[in-house]
């Protein structure tokens, strides 16, 4: 066991998988020199420029070529340098990667991982802060992962690489070096599509993922200490497919639910969680299905005070917990 940050865990996952299976390659801008977040440091030295491949600045082609390679015996990991820069590849991702298997009646498949750092809180301005999971969680044929901790990141990235489908793997960049966590020495995976109860509780269910898992846990601790409220915090980890069963079971138990996400409110992924609960757990609800998210503003302005004003944080979450508990 060793203590690792999330970005180290991601690097280790790629390293170990590439060692295990030489069909795996990493391709993207600047991956050869280690990547702008150092996620691919050392891979070039170990695996050479053919398996740790610098590409031109052309996201659509990065994804498109990765799709092609995946049809011909390669297992590509395509890195988008920032989530916002995956937009030029949107067509390749949703029209091609997501639909190849379906349209060919199951005869072609695209075993591809697209990694992208996402999320705000690092004063990156409007183009280095975006959440993009809602776009892709809506698209059948894709799997979408949003990781928040080193252990989950490593285990889920391995699962993503071994999955025969296209997987969008979103790494919250503020979580890259947020904390360290014990990581087993031996190979392990975390299953795609399974949520984890990161904190047990009985008064309320809090559903979240990504960086907001950390903020939510902090808020849950605060309201436990200060208000004696027992909040169950569920980290979805995967937003497509998402773990409806785990969420519904918890809501049946607690009767109240708070959904926390960083993305702007309208049409964010939490809307789907809320809609599902409002339909399938209606009989168990003792209060409004409540969402905490960023307002409907392009996330995020470069100026720190403006950015902070917009984003959910432990205080805002704690206050929403108290309001809902009082309902």
């Amino acid at each position: 066991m060793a203590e690792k940050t999330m970005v180290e865990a991601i690097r280790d996952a790629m390293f170990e998988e590439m060692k295990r299976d030489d069909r795996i390659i990493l391709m993207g801008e600047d991956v050869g020199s280690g990547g702008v977040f150092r996620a691919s440091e050392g891979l070039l030295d170990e695996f050479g420029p053919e398996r740790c491949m610098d590409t031109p600045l052309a996201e659509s082609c990065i994804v498109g070529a990765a799709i092609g390679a995946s049809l011909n015996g390669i297992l590509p990991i395509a890195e988008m340098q920032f989530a916002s820069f995956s937009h030029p590849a949107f067509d390749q991702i949703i029209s091609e990667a997501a639909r190849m298997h379906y349209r060919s009646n199951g005869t072609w498949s695209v075993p591809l991982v697209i990694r992208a750092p996402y999320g705000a809180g690092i004063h990156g301005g409007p183009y280095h802060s975006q959440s993009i999971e809602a776009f892709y969680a809506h698209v059948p044929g894709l799997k979408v992962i949003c990781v928040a901790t080193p252990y989950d990141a490593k285990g889920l990235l391995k699962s993503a690489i071994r999955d025969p489908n296209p997987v969008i793997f979103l790494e919250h960049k503020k979580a890259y070096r947020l904390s360290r966590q014990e990581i087993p020495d031996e190979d392990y995976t975390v299953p795609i599509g399974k949520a984890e109860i990161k904190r047990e509780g009985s008064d309320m269910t809090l559903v979240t993922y990504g960086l907001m898992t950390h903020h939510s846990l902090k808020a849950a601790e605060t309201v436990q200490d200060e208000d004696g409220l027992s909040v169950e915090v569920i980290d979805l980890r995967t937003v497509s497919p998402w773990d409806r069963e785990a969420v519904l079971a918890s809501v049946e138990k607690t009767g109240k639910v708070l959904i926390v996400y960083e993305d702007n409110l309208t049409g964010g992924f939490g809307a789907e969680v809320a809609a599902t609960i409002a339909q399938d757990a209606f009989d168990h609800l003792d209060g409004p299905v409540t969402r905490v998210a960023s307002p409907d503003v392009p996330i995020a302005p470069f100026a720190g005070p403006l950015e902070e004003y917009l984003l959910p944080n432990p205080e805002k979450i704690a206050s929403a917990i108290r309001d809902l508990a009082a309902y």
Partner: protein
Amino acid sequence: MVSVKDIPGASGLTKEQLLAMYQKMALARAVGERERMLNRLGKGPFAVTGEGQEAAQVGVAFALRPGQDWIVPYYRDIGVALTIGQTPRDLLLAHLFRAEDISGGGRNMPSHFSDPKLRIVSTSACVGTQIPHAVGIALASKLRKLDEVTATFFGDGATSTGDWHESMNFAGIHKLPVIFVCEQNWYAISVPWRKQAAVESVASRAEGYGFPGVSVDGNDVLAVYRVAKQAMSRARDGEGPTLIEAVTYRLVPHTSDDDDRRYRSREEVEEWKKKDPLIRFSAWIEEHGIADHSDLERIQEKIAQEVDEASEYAEQAPVAEPESALRHVYVEEEEVV
């Protein structure tokens, strides 16, 4: 009678090969016509065919090794699909969206050819998006050190897309074994080439990506074949990509939903009909004594029969069960290898 080998322009093809070439072109023509007829009869809701472009398609496809080289076609490539090994039955099953349709079980549109056995890759209806796939397939061949060439086909319209540029550039950098085939038919639906580009020939753009571009008379099947053969050699020798611009014309409307009288004159179409690649090749064959008129008629008759049979078969074949529409969104457990 001179030996075929010595006929200028025959490119070393045998008599049998030349006739096979002709057969594929004529078959492509017949399948295209049948699809448009079935559409008019209200049987296939949509037809997109390639009459007029058979020489460009068959000429290139003939230079490829079916099942070994990879094909990333576009929706007009009936001639490519048939030359590589799809059958009229395959294509008409797709046209009539039958369960047995190898290309997609009726899910994808007709003429969106696919066949893993033949290494024909499934494409979407989005113009240009298949080109990066071709480049990626070729990258894999190179990384895996396999003797495989990838040929991808597209119209002039596709050359305006970002994906085209990014792919050409990527292929040039890695000197990939890929052949880019532009079927220059002068229109993207109704938009004429002069509104699509300020240059005469798109082949000239290849230089900017570090590999050769060749413009060839796309209605001359043997000329196309020669150029494709050279591109194949280059690719196999590690010299990298070639862009082939096969100059041709679509003799029919864009699709069954199109009325081409809105945007091109009948005179223009008639002018191009005179250059019909099928008529031209049959004349060449007769002129060089490869076969006589009655031989070619026999080929045509066999084709008509084959297409009739395929059509009958396809019409009687069942459509997939409606609930099957829920399948194959993700790779299913039992499909994992």
